[in-house]
């Protein structure tokens, strides 16, 4: 099989990258292994578990269902972008810590990316809305209750 290479230019967490990649390379593998941004996790590689969720131009996408070449000329945000330069938590990270919203932490990056995008759109969500928004991310440890509480708290704090 001829290897089919493409040049891509994209911005990840505000840094511009130019790379030559195979057409079949998954965006998740590109981020994790080519760019060493291993905070994005891979749970199922068939788009169900949500662990690999990143933001593409601000909207959540499953990086295991996208090819790196499809991200050409787009802006990607991953979990590594959430905390401030001095290490200060994003309000959702802080609330997840405060509410014990993570155990093994493997699904957490995907949940953080999904729910920060959700909170950008919905500033005053109720519990049902949060559960609906969260339902595309599987967590096997927490039973979701503390995550729901964390999102609620983060929304309150972000409203000020």
């Amino acid at each position, binding site marked *: 099989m001829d290897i089919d290479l493409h040049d891509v230019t994209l911005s990840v967490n505000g840094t511009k990258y130019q790379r030559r990649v195979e057409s079949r390379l998954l965006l998740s593998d590109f981020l994790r292994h080519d760019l060493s941004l291993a905070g994005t996790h891979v749970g*199922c590689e068939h788009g169900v578990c949500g662990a690999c969720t990143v933001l593409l131009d601000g909207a959540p996408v499953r990086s295991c269902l996208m090819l790196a070449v499809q991200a050409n000329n787009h802006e990607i945000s991953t979990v590594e972008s959430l*905390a401030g330069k001095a290490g200060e938590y994003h309000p959702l990270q802080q609330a*997840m810590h405060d509410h014990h919203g993570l155990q*093994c*932490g493997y699904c957490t990056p995907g949940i953080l990316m999904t729910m920060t995008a959700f909170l950008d759109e919905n500033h005053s969500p109720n519990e049902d809305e949060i559960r609906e928004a969260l339902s595309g991310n599987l967590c*096997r440890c*927490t*039973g979701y209750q503390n995550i729901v509480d964390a999102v609620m708290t983060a929304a309150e704090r972000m409203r000020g």
Partner: protein
Amino acid sequence: MSTRNFGEPVKRNEDRKLLTGQALFVDDVELPGMLHAALLRSQVAHARILKIDVAKALQRPGVVAAFVAADLGDYWRPGPLLVPPPPITGIVFHQRTQVPLAREKVRHVGEPLVIVIAASRYIAEDALDDIEVELEPLAAVVDLEKGLAAGSVLVHDDLGSNVSAHVRQTTGSYAAAVTKADHTLKRRFFYEHGISSPIETRGVVAQWDARAGQMTIWDTTQAPVFVRNGLAGMLGLNERQVRVIAPFVGGGFGPKIMMFYPEEVLLPWVSMRLNRPVKWIEDRLEHFFATTQERGQIHDAEMAVSRDGRILGIKDVFLHDGGAYDPYGLTVPLNSQCTLLGPYVVPAYDSTFTQVFTNLPIVTPYRGAGRQHGVFVIERLLDLAAHELQIDPAEIRRRNLIPPDAFPYRNEIIYQDFGALEYDSGDYEPVLDMAMQSIGYAAFRQEQATARLQGRHLGIGLACYVEGTGIGPYEGAKVQVQSNGKVSVATGIGTQGQGHFTVFAQIAADQLGVAVADVDVVTGDTDQFYWGAGTFASRGAVVAGNAVNEASKVVRKKILKLASDLFECAEDDLVIADGKVSIVGIPEKFVALGDLARQANPMRGAVQPGTEPGLEATQYFGPKMGATANGVHAMIIEMDPQTFELKIVRYVVVHDCGTVINPMILAGQIHGGVAQGIGNAFYEKLVFDDQGQLLNASLADYLLPTALEVPRMQLAHTVTTSPLNPLGIKGAGEAGAIPVGPLFAQAIEDALDLKAKGVELREIPLSPSRLFELTRKAKR
């Protein structure tokens, strides 16, 4: 000991790395020159291997090697038996453990045939398609009863039958109980558990450093020390030459315990052979076959009861699906056999099980580890008895609870830790009372009637259980005050999200007067702590937690001794707090712990005989037996009688796991366990066809519960301390998951008046489609 942190909902030390994407998981390990492995796995459940030809794969650019069983030479051998059979009279056990690569025969879908090594995982997977395999398919053993019938095809030809094990345990005389009984019931029950499906699949990275003679293995294991010991033996290395690191592990729930998975055995060998680091990460499809799971049992159970609902005796004969190999011995069915007795007085018990080899993936413990199956049987028997004797389901349970003055309570049968099944302590009735109060039991019938008038079908369920936790043999911990004043704690267990970095820090912080955040806990690195068993059977907090406490106490003594010499005062005049030792009443007279640690390791002068340098201690703790936790779950559901759509209206857990180290982390353990129990009861089902093919091997088809299915839970605790360890702790890791099945069966029967319609729910998992089938059958 000060109790400043112990018992408090201290926030977790490990969160920062996990929340910012900086935690190291196995797939995050990147090494120069690293190769990647992919495995060709059998697509049929049972077949003779006629031919495997890897020549074409080796020609593919980027492929470095491909190995079959014959290439392994003497390294090819069946894995060790992890848990030998317990000392039970008349026990039958046939050891047939898994092999690294199949030779001659494959015995389940997913069993590995070839390992391919290439420059990337993409190329390694391409090369799998190049391999030519000829298999002669055989009929598959899938059904337990057919598998035991004469003339059945055999999973292991040399055995002459598909019996893996046969065990009978009795106490009292069931025959005598029947003659005294006013009533006996006999039913058949089916209980299937499923896959643990952690969001991180398994993975192994192996790096052989030929110059250093050192093997380093990053492994998603729950038991790094056992993996180190086993692999050192297999590879012909000293244990000191092998370092196993279980870094952050993304959930385990049992199946990540060492069973010496083929990949764990193969990767280090490949790395030595090629002198290159090698990585293998399981994909989700592989996880459905290549990681162990828990499946079904069929119970023929009977119970003899008096007119007032007292249990006089139980007889149970059950079949346990063991899968194609039995590396974990009898742990799962033995847990079912023992846990069936529950929190109840059962004067006579006659229980026999047969573990059956099948052409299905290997069965080893998954959160609950067979306890669910036993709890389902006794709880359903009690529900049936309550119905027939016209006794309230909660009341019949209350009448049979072991009274508080009966502890320690000895059941005359052997448990999975090989000791007699003895409950160390407990006070069961208050737990039942709290659960009934919390769920609104007394008012429920009125609530139900009111809802029914509005066309809503509510139902209630309530189930009791015990959980054997915190078994031995032992764990250890090394506690050390660093010269920067921080405390380091190392232990041999692995961690998969249980909060060990925090609870062990709480224990050490209280003894050593430092902040929890200043205690740096290391788990799962065999170079940091040499000895240990692992994280399973709800034992981490109990066994390793007590070891941390003992080691911290010794360090505390060393601190006091050194400071008293320094200040020329009595140890009683010293106080350790805020990272320093000071003289009582003279706070300006102090020495920082870090400075003291430096003084304990001087550059000049001699260490006095009988003393050791540093502020460091290693201690071990081994309980004489497991501590028994207990609890009651109660649930109110609403169910649509046409579509069988389920909504959980209220869910209550009341639980007693002795002294609580961190209530926030404990609640998290319960929440997660219940969520897995709900999945098991109503959403998750491994569907195998009669050829042993799994028909729903994706997360789109095997339904893990989401935030929409798992309700808000209301938790409460009572505390009956365990006399088996100084901290009084009992384990809690599995408590949430264990009793959920019977709760569902009971609540659904109640919501839909199924008993009146002649339908009994005697199986788990249930689902809307299964309920449709069962009720339609009844209508006919």
